[in-house]
Structure formats: structure tokens, C-alpha cells
């Protein structure tokens, strides 16, 4: 299976080299003996395919989104905002490795000293501010052009990136930490209130990683696997209640009781998934 993958996607050569190095380093300190470092190669390769496909969709949809912004089509731009950014949210563990791009694509007003007025405030949320708070596409063209350019640059960098296995595995927890620290409060999409779509993408991205590595741990750690799965299921069940034809209800529709259940599940996933690297010998 491993060989087949290599034949299918030549760009993974770099990854294989990295994995070989990694095998050497990790073999010195086998912590949870049942997982051989070599076993990580396939799931990491699978994850790169997932990210590559997601970023391709991000590019396609960002083009449609920014075109709508530049054409002054306010309604279309507003409708495309939430679905477009889900492809970014799902791959944040990798996207955030490029901190310069992450800041210009996805920073929020309060990451900047002068908030919305700050010239450094660009990307999705700057456009969101225009579309949903100022209710206009006026003056957004430069931000649309910059976002498109940044997303293309992200795609280029990801294509040539050797995926570090610890960042991939750790990404499952990182996504949960982000939701727990700065998203569960509804502050991410503060102008459009489309946070639930972001949550859904964050969970999907985290679950993808967990699913890829699950075969390596479920034999030895059934209780852990079923606890994590139960919490993902709990999240799914809540989010399902808020699904609409084109996405999700706005954040203000989330009941207090459901928010608490979500918060508890997110905190528990963050706590449990924080051990995933260690369990795979990547601590």
C-alpha cells in the first residue's frame, strides 16, 4: 500500500526522505512500543493528499469568492464567505506552519492594535467586516486580490512542504485547542456569525487526522479510541441540529446548553488528543 502511494504521487519523495530520517531518530526512544515509526509513513502521506485536495478547493472557491467581491456582487460574496473558508479551517495545522500567510489570510481585528482600522488587518475577516458589518463591497478589491495571491502562495508552499509527522499528528489536538481557546465564544466570525461552519471544518480536520492514525493505536488502546470517538460523535450530534441547506445556522442560534456540551467535548478532545503524539512515539 505504501509503495502504491509513492507511485501515485511523485511529490511525496521528499516526505519519504524525511520519514527515513525520522525513523532513525525516533527508533532511539520507543515509548509506546507497539507503533513502529515506519507505520506513520502511510497516514502522513494520506494526510498530505487530504491537505492538497483541500487547498485545491480553497483556491477554486477563493477565486469565485474574490471575483464576487470585486464584481460588487454583495449577496453572492456573503453567501460564499463561509463555505470558502472551511477549506482553510480544516487544514489549519499545516496552514499555520506559514505564520506570515496565516496572519494575512486569517487574522482577526483584535490581532491588530488599531483593530478594523489597522492597515495590517487583511484576509478573510477584513473582507467579512466589509461585507457583513459595512454591508458593502466598496474598497474591498485590494483585499480580495491579496487574499487570492496569499492562497495561491499557500498552495505553492504546501506542494513543496515535507510534512513533519509530529505536526501532522499534533494537528488533531491543535485544532481542538484553537476551538477551545478562541472560537467556542463565537468571536471568530464576529461580523457574519458563521462560526458553526468553521467549527465543523475544524472538527472534520481533527477527525481526519485521528482516523488516519487510529489503526495504529486501536488495538492497544481501545478505551482511548472509543472515548475520542464518542466525543467526536457528541460534537456531530450537536452540529447536526444546526445544519441548513447551505451550511449552518448563525452562531447566535446556538443554545447555551448546546454551547456548554460543545465546550466540554472540545476541552476533552483537546486533553485526550494531546496524548496522541506520545502514543505514537512522536512526543
Amino acid at each position, binding site marked *: 500500500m505504501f509503495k502504491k502511494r509513492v507511485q501515485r504521487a511523485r511529490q511525496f519523495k521528499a516526505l519519504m526522505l524525511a520519514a527515513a530520517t525520522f525513523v532513525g531518530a525516533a527508533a532511539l*526512544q520507543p*515509548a*509506546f512500543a507497539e507503533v513502529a515509526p515506519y507505520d506513520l509513513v502511510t497516514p502522513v502521506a494520506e494526510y498530505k493528499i487530504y491537505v492538497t485536495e483541500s487547498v485545491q478547493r480553497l483556491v477554486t472557491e477563493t477565486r469565485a469568492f474574490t471575483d464576487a467581491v470585486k464584481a460588487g456582487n454583495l449577496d453572492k460574496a456573503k453567501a460564499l464567505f463561509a463555505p470558502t473558508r472551511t477549506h482553510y479551517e480544516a487544514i489549519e495545522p499545516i496552514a499555520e506552519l506559514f505564520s506570515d500567510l496565516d496572519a494575512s489570510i486569517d487574522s482577526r481585528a483584535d490581532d491588530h492594535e488599531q483593530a478594523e482600522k489597522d492597515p495590517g488587518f487583511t484576509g478573510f475577516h477584513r473582507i467579512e467586516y466589509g461585507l457583513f458589518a459595512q454591508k458593502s463591497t466598496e474598497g474591498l478589491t485590494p483585499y480580495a486580490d491579496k487574499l487570492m495571491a496569499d492562497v495561491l502562495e499557500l498552495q505553492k508552499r504546501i506542494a513543496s512542504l515535507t510534512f513533519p509527522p509530529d505536526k501532522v499528528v499534533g494537528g488533531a489536538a491543535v485544532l481542538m485547542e484553537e476551538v477551545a481557546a478562541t472560537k467556542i465564544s463565537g468571536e471568530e466570525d464576529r461580523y457574519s456569525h458563521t462560526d458553526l461552519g468553521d467549527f465543523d471544518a475544524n472538527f472534520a480536520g481533527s477527525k481526519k487526522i485521528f482516523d488516519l492514525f487510529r489503526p495504529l493505536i486501536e488495538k492497544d488502546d481501545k478505551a482511548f479510541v472509543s472515548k475520542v470517538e464518542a*466525543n467526536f460523535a457528541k460534537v456531530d450530534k450537536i452540529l447536526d441540529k444546526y445544519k441548513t441547506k447551505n451550511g449552518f445556522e448563525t452562531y447566535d442560534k446556538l443554545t447555551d446548553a448546546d454551547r*456548554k*456540551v460543545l*465546550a*466540554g*467535548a472540545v*476541552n*476533552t478532545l*483537546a*486533553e485526550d488528543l*494531546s*496524548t496522541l*503524539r*506520545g*502514543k505514537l*512515539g*512522536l*512526543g
Partner: protein
Amino acid sequence: MSPLRSLEEAGAAMPDRRRVLLCLGAAACALSSGVASVWAAAPANEEGNVARAPASDKTQERQPFYGIHQSGVTTPRPATGMVAAFEVLASSPADLVRLFETLTARIAFLTQGGAPPVLDPQLPPADSGILGPEVFPDNLTVTVSLGVSMFDQRFGLAEQRPLHLVRMMSFRNDALDAARCHGDLSLQICSNTADTNNHALRDIVKMMPDLLLLRWMQEGSVPVIPASPGVPAESARNFLGFRDGSANPDATDEALMNRVVWVGAEQEGEPVWTRGGTYQAVRIIRNFVERWDRTPLQEQELIFGRRKASGAPLSGGTEADVPDFAADPEGEITPLDAHIRLANPRDDKSKINLIMRRPFNYMNGVTSAGQLNQGLLFIAYQNNLQLGFITVQQSLDGEPLEEYIKPVGGGFFFALPGAVDNRDFLGRGLLAAAGFV
């Protein structure tokens, strides 16, 4: 690269740099000795290192955990305390049992001290490490109390509600901030140092993310006074500069504590499981300290009904002296609306309204108006919330002190009876009454 990171790297580079300097010829060494000393290791004389940890001879002070009452109520108040309020996320009786058993086990460990387990270094460590590899008790108490919402329809405990437990109402002068009010469960965490409280809070938060969701927390402390043997003890001062707690009942008087603080068989209508517990009233009361500090001393003293320096009643004597309001029916000495007179008229009728106060002072930075955001983390215990805090607060409604204070948060809770031994756990009586254990 973050500044912190680069500092660390600079630190890591130090020994190399020193070695290079040492390897130079003697002449060069002499020339560079001034530079070398800049990179010298920690000074041999410990006093010379400004980052040395402050030493305390109180880290082994220990409060009992097991007993018919929880510690932290009649326990002498240490220098620091906090209240943290949580939502309980339990979805089954088994979850509730796990919640209370885990809380009991963590508090038993944290208050007595010991070494947390050492895990594989590839895993996150079991303990935050704030207190070092060996957790010391540092006089820690963690007191678990339940809000009235624990007795709503979610958990099957509705029939077990303590008789007088209600949701904290808004009193006349209150401006309650919903984000700092109420909660299913409160922890009062007190010890000699704020860091020990923080260590305990983080331990509990980490152990039960699926059962407890933090809602709000407020830290506080009380100012220390110079030790003066042979001189009667003084109450600690609040941020208005007045001694607070002067009229508190004597916590060492067991009979009095049974009359004022602990729920017992005498409390008619209370579920049997509540015996040994007590009602906890928590209030976050902002003090407008700039304005207070611009108020004439004699006005401050008339508002409180005490001398600021000594804590004595306006009729004279010392802090310990009881004012004779009956001899001053017109309020010529102590105004009729003075804080201490309204709160405790010292007559036979008001004896049933006694409460045990155990407050801390808090500082929360600066308001958007550029004023100091500080005040009192008021905590009081009594065996009848209605006759205790609620009645006392209602009699204070409209007092002149209101101009200088603004209650903004808090909640009413019921502090569980103690766990009597290591086969018991906090809340077992409640869960047994509900048929869960």
C-alpha cells in the same frame, strides 16, 4: 521568532561564549575578564540572584481533609483565596459519581501534598509543575459547594435541594454581570500563596474537562500585618482601609458554629444529607476606591460606624468591643444607617441573622474609564441563607456606603458536608439520597 525564544537561545549560547573566552591566551583573558563576568553563571551568593524564589517556612502547613465538615469554612483564613464557579456537564448518575469521587481524590491529594505520577516524557506531564516535582500543601483548602441549578431537572437531584438554596437575586444596589454570576458548582480555594491556589485550580480543570466547564473565577488576598505577640488579633483590612470581620462569631466555639454555620437536625425542613454542610454566599463587590480616597475621614467613619485606624466602634474602646446601640437610639454616636449598625443591630432579635464572613480583597486591573477595578470578594457562611446573608443584605439596602460600592457578581451555593474518611466522598450523602449510589 518570538523574543522569548531568542532570549532562551541567547541563554543557551552563554556557556559556549564563556568557554571561548577562557580558551584565549592569558593576556586576552585578562583583557576580556570584564566581558567574561557578564556571562558568569548564577552568583555563588544566593542573595545576589534577583530571580531567586522567595522562601517560605509555611509550605508544609496542612489542613485536614477528612471530617464531618469541609475545611475552608471555620478554618482560619490564609493570605489568599479564590472562588471558581463551574457548569456541570454530567449526563448520567455515573457521571455525577465520577465527578464527586474525582473531586474528592484530587482535593485529598492537593491538600495533603505528595509527588504526582511521573509519566513517559512523550506525554504531557500529569501535573502543571507550578509547585515543583513534589506538591506541598501550603495550607490549602478546597471547599466544594453546589448552586441551586444542580437541583434543576438535568441531574435527577431536584427533590434533594437544600431548603433555602435559591438563585442569587439582584439586590437594590447590584449591577450584576451575567458572566460573573451563579454556576452549578463552586470551589473556594484558599492557601498561603496565590500560586498554590492556581496549581489546585489547574489540576482540577485538567482532570475533568468532560464534567466541569469553568464559568467564572475571582481571586483575592488579604493584607498581612506585622506579627505582634501579646497584642489582641486584628481583623484584616478591606480595600476601603477598614477592618473587615470584626463582628464575626468565634470559629473556635463549636457550639456557636453549630448554631450559626453548620446545618444540623435543628434546621427544620432540610434534607438529611445537608447535615454538616453550610450555605455559601459569594459576592464580587467593586469598590470605587478613587472616590473613597477623596472622602473625608470622618465621613468614612460615619458611613462604616467604626474608627478607621483602630477598628473600634464610634462609641470607643477597641475593635473587640461591642457597640451599645440601645444607648444611642437617635444615632448621635453611630448613625442609624451606619454599615455596622444596619448589618448587625446587636439586639436579641438579630442573633438569628448572624453570618460568618471570610472575604478577600481583589484587584482586576483598570476599567475602561481608567479607574482601578478592585473590591471585595465577599464570602459568607451560615446555616440558613434566608435568615443569614439575604436578610442582612436586605437590611443594608440603601445604606450610604452604596455610593462607594457596586456588587457585580457572585452566587449562592451550598457547601457539601465533609467526607469522613477515605471510603467516603464529597457529595456521597446527596447521591445516596437520590438513589445514585
